[in-house]
């Protein structure tokens, strides 16, 4: 069985720190994303769960944003390092594939941090209608505001940008390019 976690807040099993050690979840929540360093893995919704087993092993579960995310190994190493530095020697990082990551899990503070860094945060992910997945042949009319000047006069340049999770946009008011986290 793939470990299933119901949602980003389903971490009630988190225990407090061992003895005088800092709270284990608080430590895991300080680790940032290697490609979006303004966000923590918790902000991004990639950090799914943190708990301590009865034998004292810290188990952290993370989920990839996209199947080809090259940063998963980096995240595992960063989490192990942060927890060991805080005094937790026995750390296990597990991959959780199900449920699949969605941009809806990016936290409110994460969205604010993205906007501050000049990256347009995602809208709500599309809701799947019954039947086969529909083609999207024309640009859907939706407002993506320029994170620099706030203008709504923007246009999509490409569905794919410097990382799989972003699309490339241009503002027609201030003429600056910017990236938008695309909804999945």
């Amino acid at each position, binding site marked *: 069985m793939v470990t299933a976690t119901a949602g980003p807040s389903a971490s009630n099993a988190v225990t407090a720190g061992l003895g005088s050690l800092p709270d284990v979840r608080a430590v895991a929540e300080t680790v940032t994303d290697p490609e979006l360093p303004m966000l923590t893995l918790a902000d991004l919704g990639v950090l799914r769960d943190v708990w301590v087993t009865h034998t004292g092993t810290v188990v952290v579960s993370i989920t990839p944003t996209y*199947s080809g995310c090259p940063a998963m190994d980096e995240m595992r*190493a960063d989490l192990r390092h942060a927890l060991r530095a805080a005094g937790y020697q026995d750390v296990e990082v597990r991959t959780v*594939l199900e449920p*699949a990551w969605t941009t809806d899990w990016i936290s409110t503070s994460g969205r604010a941090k993205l906007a501050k860094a000049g990256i347009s945060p995602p809208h709500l992910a599309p809701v799947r209608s019954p039947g086969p997945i529909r083609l999207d042949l024309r640009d859907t009319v939706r407002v993506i505001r320029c994170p620099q000047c706030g203008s709504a006069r923007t246009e999509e340049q490409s569905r794919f940008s410097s990382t799989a999770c972003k699309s490339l946009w241009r503002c027609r008011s201030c003429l600056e390019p910017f990236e938008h986290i695309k909804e*999945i």
Partner: protein
Amino acid sequence: MGHNDHQDDFADAYGSIAADNDEHRWAFGSGFDDPLAGVDTSVQSGVDGTDLATYCLMLGDDALVLSHRLQEWVSWAPELEDEVAIANIGLDLLGQARLLLARAAKADGSDRGEDAYAYLRDPSEFRNVTLVELDNGDFAQSLARLLIFSTYRLALLDRLRTSRDPVLAAIAAKGVKEVTYHRDYAARWMLRLGDGTGESHSRADSGLTAVWPYVDELFAPHEVEVRLAAAGIGVDPSSLRAEFDSVVAEVLSAATLTEPARADAPSARGRNGEHIQALTTLLTEMQGLARSLPDATW
């Protein structure tokens, strides 16, 4: 990479970096872990592990080989934006391939690494369909192939989300989100080319005609697919044809293109390990470094 935990000799910069490699990568993306690390990969009762592994190789090899073909476009695409898009699509497929090959290794009990499958198998051990190994041709032909492949794969993954194998189901659920973008990208390009200039229309038409003979093979069920479909683990590809036809017809109609006539079915059956010369050439390039320097790390 050698581990030597307590030898912090800063006179040897490389050694000091390598010594702590588990914690501090010396280069981003260097060294790959098991993509299924920590995922429960036990095989459900009543499921034949060998069949499941073969099936994972079929779907994994499709993704791996097409990913390589897409990577061949890097530095050759018509616009920078398309270069980035095609590389991203190739990366998504590579990620799907890694998960599927890793799943195969757990299912057949060999527990070999994903690299052993990718780099150390001969062409006759690859289970991908012929469509993905064809040479790229021009941009229009590559996009026609991508439209056909992603339409087929999206229909397949969408049904695989309810597989009784929880790992396959999870890989599929994730892949559906990715391939939806791939299919839209290819479909929009077919529109631009088909409904563009006389030259672009003609290129799109020729590209489609060149890859069309390999469509039927996608939907011809292999015995492993049939057995696993009956067991609720896999998908019978013949069940995908109606959705495929309807989606492709919608794109071609909007692109002012017509479906090519059915050509003689080629004899190669990729799912059986029968391939054309193009795969051998592709693997020679893809596997060359790993085979000549089997212990290389970077």
